[in-house]
């Protein structure tokens, strides 16, 4: 768990509590004929130097949020509402040139299946050089030097700049991608399922690496994954997404001790434990709603163990009224009628 330590000269120490990214009311829609509301009103704040986890399953919209922050949502997707500010500056309206500067320098991304993002016919060093020269005027020699530095930073032998991607193992390719993402010293790195395709041992190594780098360099991380157990270990704050919305958001410790939203609890209980008694788990029956259909009431209600017609009043609210995010404890927000009623 990262603890904010004010070491002299540590980048970011002076701006610990500064908000880097402030997303308000983000709406992203895909398609024209049958529009899918992939992201339906999200608020998300990322502060300098913190690791924010965004958890959810397929189709919940988490990758779309990442694309939106980098303004790389591709047609037929488009941002239809909300604002995204970086250090107070609105980026949704930025021109091409400014966006180009913003991307990678301020915010960079490690993509899902990043191993395939490397060009198989170019050497690793060349890909670094290409990337750096796209953003700054720098000679090939200097760029290669920097590439070697970065490889060393992520624990790869610097001589590997001359290797082709297929000569590296999966874990090493992942580190190369991470190194590239750090090349321009961004303040925020978005990582979309950076370890999903890796073996558990390599995954552990990469996670360790990310944590070490983050401590050393002080950048913020938006860690997107479906593996909540990873986030509970690694993140400072965690937001849980379901069907295009954030349903719970809290510091990791609070979530570990007392997750409130039934979906979060369902997720946590979907991880069979390695120790302790072997009990039968329930998982979460059913599947997420079709976001092309208009949504009424709580989107999780059809799968929620607490949505019972017998509790007439509560059930009515669950099926007709949209639950809003409310603070139930300092820094802990939940969007759930039942939790609200218990307050």
């Amino acid at each position, binding site marked *: 768990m990262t603890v904010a330590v004010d070491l002299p000269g540590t980048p970011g120490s002076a701006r610990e509590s500064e908000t880097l990214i402030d997303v308000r009311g983000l709406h992203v829609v*895909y*398609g024209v*004929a049958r529009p*899918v509301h992939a992201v339906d009103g999200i608020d998300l704040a990322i502060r300098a130097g913190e690791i924010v986890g965004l958890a*959810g399953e*397929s*189709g*919940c*919209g*988490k*990758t*779309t949020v990442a694309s939106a922050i980098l303004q790389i949502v591709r047609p*037929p997707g488009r941002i239809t509402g909300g604002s995204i500010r970086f250090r107070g500056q609105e980026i949704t309206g930025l021109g091409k040139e400014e966006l180009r500067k913003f991307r990678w320098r301020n915010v960079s991304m490690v993509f899902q299946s990043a191993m395939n993002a490397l060009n198989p016919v170019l050497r690793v060093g060349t890909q670094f050089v290409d990337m750096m020269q796209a953003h700054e005027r720098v000679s090939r020699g200097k760029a290669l030097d920097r590439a070697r530095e970065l490889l060393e930073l992520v624990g790869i032998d610097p001589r590997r700049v001359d290797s082709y991607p297929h000569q590296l193992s999966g874990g090493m390719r992942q580190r190369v991608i991470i190194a590239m993402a750090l090349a321009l010293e961004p303040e925020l790195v978005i990582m979309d399922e950076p370890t999903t395709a890796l073996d558990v041992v390599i995954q552990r190594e990469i996670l360790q690496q990310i944590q070490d780098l983050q401590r050393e360099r002080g950048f913020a991380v938006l860690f997107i994954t479906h593996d909540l157990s990873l986030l509970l270990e690694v993140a400072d704050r965690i937001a849980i997404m379901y069907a295009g919305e954030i349903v719970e958001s809290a510091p990791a410790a609070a979530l570990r001790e007392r997750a409130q939203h039934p979906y979060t609890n369902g997720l946590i209980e979907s991880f069979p434990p390695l120790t302790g008694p072997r009990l039968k788990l329930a998982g979460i029956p059913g599947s997420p709603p079709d976001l092309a259909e208009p949504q009424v009431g709580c989107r999780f209600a059809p799968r929620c163990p607490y949505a019972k017609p017998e509790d007439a009043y509560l059930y009515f609210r669950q099926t007709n009224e949209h639950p809003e995010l409310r603070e139930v404890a300092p820094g802990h927000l939940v969007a759930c009628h039942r939790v609200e009623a218990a307050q």
Partner: protein
Amino acid sequence: MKRLHAPGWLRLLLANPKSRLGLGILAFIVLLTAIGPFFASKDPNAFNLLAARQAPSWHHLFGTTDQGSDVFAQVVVGARRSLLLGFAAATLATTVATILGVLAAYSGGLVDEGINALINIFLVLPTIPLLVVISGFLKARGLWTMVLVLGLVLWAFEARILRSQAMSLRNRDFVQAAKAAGESTHRIIFGELMPNMISRIAAAWVLVFYIALLTDAGLEFLGLGSLQKPAWGVTLYWAQTNSAVLQGEWWSFIAPGAALALTVLGLTFLLAGIDEVSNPRLRTERVGGGLAHRLTELILPSRPARPRAEAS
């Protein structure tokens, strides 16, 4: 009276706008081929030097060649031979390419090595000498000789491509699962592999069709055929040799060229439709729209019916 039921695949092709347009164009061409000769009162081969190199007029709808032959007649009568030639050569070459390619991919081992070697040989042999040698053996001349020759020359490059595709399909889990279920090799190839290769096989067919037609003229010139029988490729060939472009005699090559292009266009639209129809994921639901929307639908690749469940 019993209603006629079109076979399922035909219905799908008619429902898809791209293949519908393609089929329409092809139907038009075939119609022209069938009834056109009745309107072409001139003998396509008759030459009349006095009437040479004339621009289109009521007398000669598409003008005349340098020999005074009527271009319209050549196009319309030649259509029959061209279409037949293209169709037969494409079918022969594609069938051989598919059988050998898939067999090589699925069998692996020595069979694969053997067929690969065969493909390489055919690819490396220079076409013209090969044809000369073949023509030496074949006594008969004429359409079917041409078809055979074209088929022999054109199967190899497609075989290689189809082999690659079959190889990548062979390792897919669903083929392994079929094998594990006890499915026979025969049924795996025809029931599981091939349906996934339809659009590539169809594309191979169209490509060979096009090349066959153009190669035809050159081959005729080498003495493998008869330059007397009209065909689009022949008309084009003569137009080229007689510097029709330089002379500004646009009609002698535009007409047959357009006919060929239109046929291939129709085939291409049909192909695009087959692409969509053979992949259930691309069978989109049609939303009614204006002309602009429909024209765009024709040209742009389709969107899948639904985003894949696993996209976040």
